[in-house]
């Protein structure tokens, strides 16, 4: 197979787009995890489900801000919503972001109501507590998955080296967003009053996400290598960020939640504290890895 030749100019998508990709992953992932906890979790998991929805909206609200600031003509952001091009992930994503914003907003109000702070929302909350609510949250989660993953597809649908040399970026960003969201919820859960078991389950989920991400990362780098762009991806010291991204995945994969297994005795408290500190450290490293992955992907192709 001949090596792919690229003559395209980089679009200078740098800091603002990096932040957009980061928060889109966290926001979409948080909504998905919140939905899983809400619909398939135990009662004890509902506190963290609410936290997920309370976190998802601010993340999603930041996204259009970063996108707009990055535009050459910020006041023309709405032009993306006056035209639809199915072949352009940026066009599809603009509408998906708008729709997901609606889901995230309603879920945010529902979560706020659950904490007893928004009584006027009660009729809607009662509606959302039934089967209609389940459908609402599942559809919202599908949009959340899309928001977390389409940013990778957007990069692939170009003629840039590294980005367009692989089909794996969409899935990579999606599962990386899920992993980052799980880490964020672990951080918030550990620091809050959430039971250890809920946090443990999220840690376990993060381990799975990290495993899928690691496989996709290997696939991505292999496809880039086959296309002959690995030198660009690893050049200028970017290899360190790739290494950080890969290393950060090993922690949740190898981490073994233990706190819940010891429930009595004087060592229980100490073990719980160690588990808690491990959870915090692992989550922090995962979030760093999520950011490192996006920096490496975005910047190595452009700088």
């Amino acid at each position: 197979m001949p090596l792919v030749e690229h003559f395209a100019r980089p679009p200078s998508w740098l800091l603002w787009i990096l932040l957009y990709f980061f928060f889109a992953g966290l926001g979409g992932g948080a909504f998905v995890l919140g939905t899983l906890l809400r619909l398939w979790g135990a009662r004890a998991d509902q506190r963290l489900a609410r936290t997920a929805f309370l976190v998802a909206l601010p993340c999603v609200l930041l996204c259009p801000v970063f996108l707009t600031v990055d535009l050459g003509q910020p006041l023309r952001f709405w032009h993306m919503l006056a035209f639809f091009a199915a072949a352009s992930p940026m066009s599809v994503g603009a509408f998906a972001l708008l729709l997901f914003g609606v889901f995230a907003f309603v879920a945010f109000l529902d979560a706020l109501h659950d904490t007893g702070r928004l009584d006027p929302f009660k009729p809607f909350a009662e509606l959302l507590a039934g089967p209609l609510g389940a459908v609402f949250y599942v559809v919202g989660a599908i949009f959340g998955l899309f928001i977390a993953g389409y940013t990778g597809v957007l990069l692939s649908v170009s003629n840039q080296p590294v980005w367009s040399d692989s089909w794996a970026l969409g899935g990579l960003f999606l599962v990386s967003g899920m992993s980052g969201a799980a880490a964020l919820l672990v951080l918030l859960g550990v620091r809050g009053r959430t039971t250890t078991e809920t946090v443990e389950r999220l840690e376990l989920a993060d381990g799975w996400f990290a495993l899928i991400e690691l496989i996709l990362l290997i696939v991505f780098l292999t496809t880039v290598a086959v296309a002959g762009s690995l030198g660009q991806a690893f050049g200028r010291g970017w290899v360190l960020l790739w290494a950080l991204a890969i290393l950060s995945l090993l922690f949740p994969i190898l981490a073994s939640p233990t706190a819940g297994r010891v429930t009595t005795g004087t060592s229980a408290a100490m073990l719980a504290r160690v588990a808690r500190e491990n959870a915090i450290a692992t989550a922090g490293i995962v979030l760093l890895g999520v950011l490192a992955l996006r920096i490496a992907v975005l910047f190595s192709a452009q700088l």
Partner: protein
Amino acid sequence: MALQISPGEKYGFFTDTSVCIGCKACEVACKEWNGLQGNQPAFLADSFDNTGQLDAENWRHVKFIEQVPDASTAVGNGQAWLMMSDVCKHCQHASCMQVCPTGAIIRTEFDTVFIQQDVCNGCRNCISACPYSVIGFSSQTGTAHKCTLCYDRLQSSMMPACAKACPTQSIQFGKLSDLQAAADARLTAVKASAPKAQLYGRGGDVYGGLNAFFLLMDKPETYGLPNAANAVLPDRNNFGGYLGALVTGVLAVLAGLIAIRRRREPEPHPIHETSVVAEAEPVGPTATGPAHNGGDGRRRRGSRRPRTRS
């Protein structure tokens, strides 16, 4: 005879690089007509090139490609020193149009590709897609720019400025069918003395055909142009990208379900599970939620929050 340019007909450029002398009259005429200021002059140490590239301020760019052999040869066959006036190709299958999220990039009534400046919002997606590195971003206007094929001149039945200024007719403008016939004849004429000569973008093998096509004296890669195998559209990755994301999404949700799913207790209970955190660091009755909300802090239907004011 006055030039007649009719909407609905296909127009374009045929750039015959075999007669380009690198005078850059095309660059000057383009800037003059379109009011382009140009970039700050820079010494690029690249042959006679001090323009550098096509961008928001340079819609024509004369490339100089030196292939002068160390040993003297009898005949260079037109390949020793290549000059080529590069420009937007106005592709039939335009990558920039494909990804533009605002509809700012359109095909005009002259079959050329045009960026509407009042619609473009400066997202730069077209820049990431253009395989010829033609489109540039202007920080002055906050929008993307490229050759318009002198759209305003065409509307007045005037030849584009670069073609008008070219002293050797290296840049020819006209109806696409006429240009293609002229190109075929020219190729036949030069092929005997320049065996590597070839038409680039004349047929549909490169982006469905280019409205601005070229007679090259060497292979396309020598000029920094993608060959037919590498002339690929950005949307080739749509299917694989979305499919990969879909499969990953399904796997991730399944993984999440495996980790998170557990049976929900039929009745709420204040202390429904063993909590090491609660055991290790008691935080009072609110650790598992007040009784009125089912022990998890979540309000149940029918339960009322204690009011603090009457």
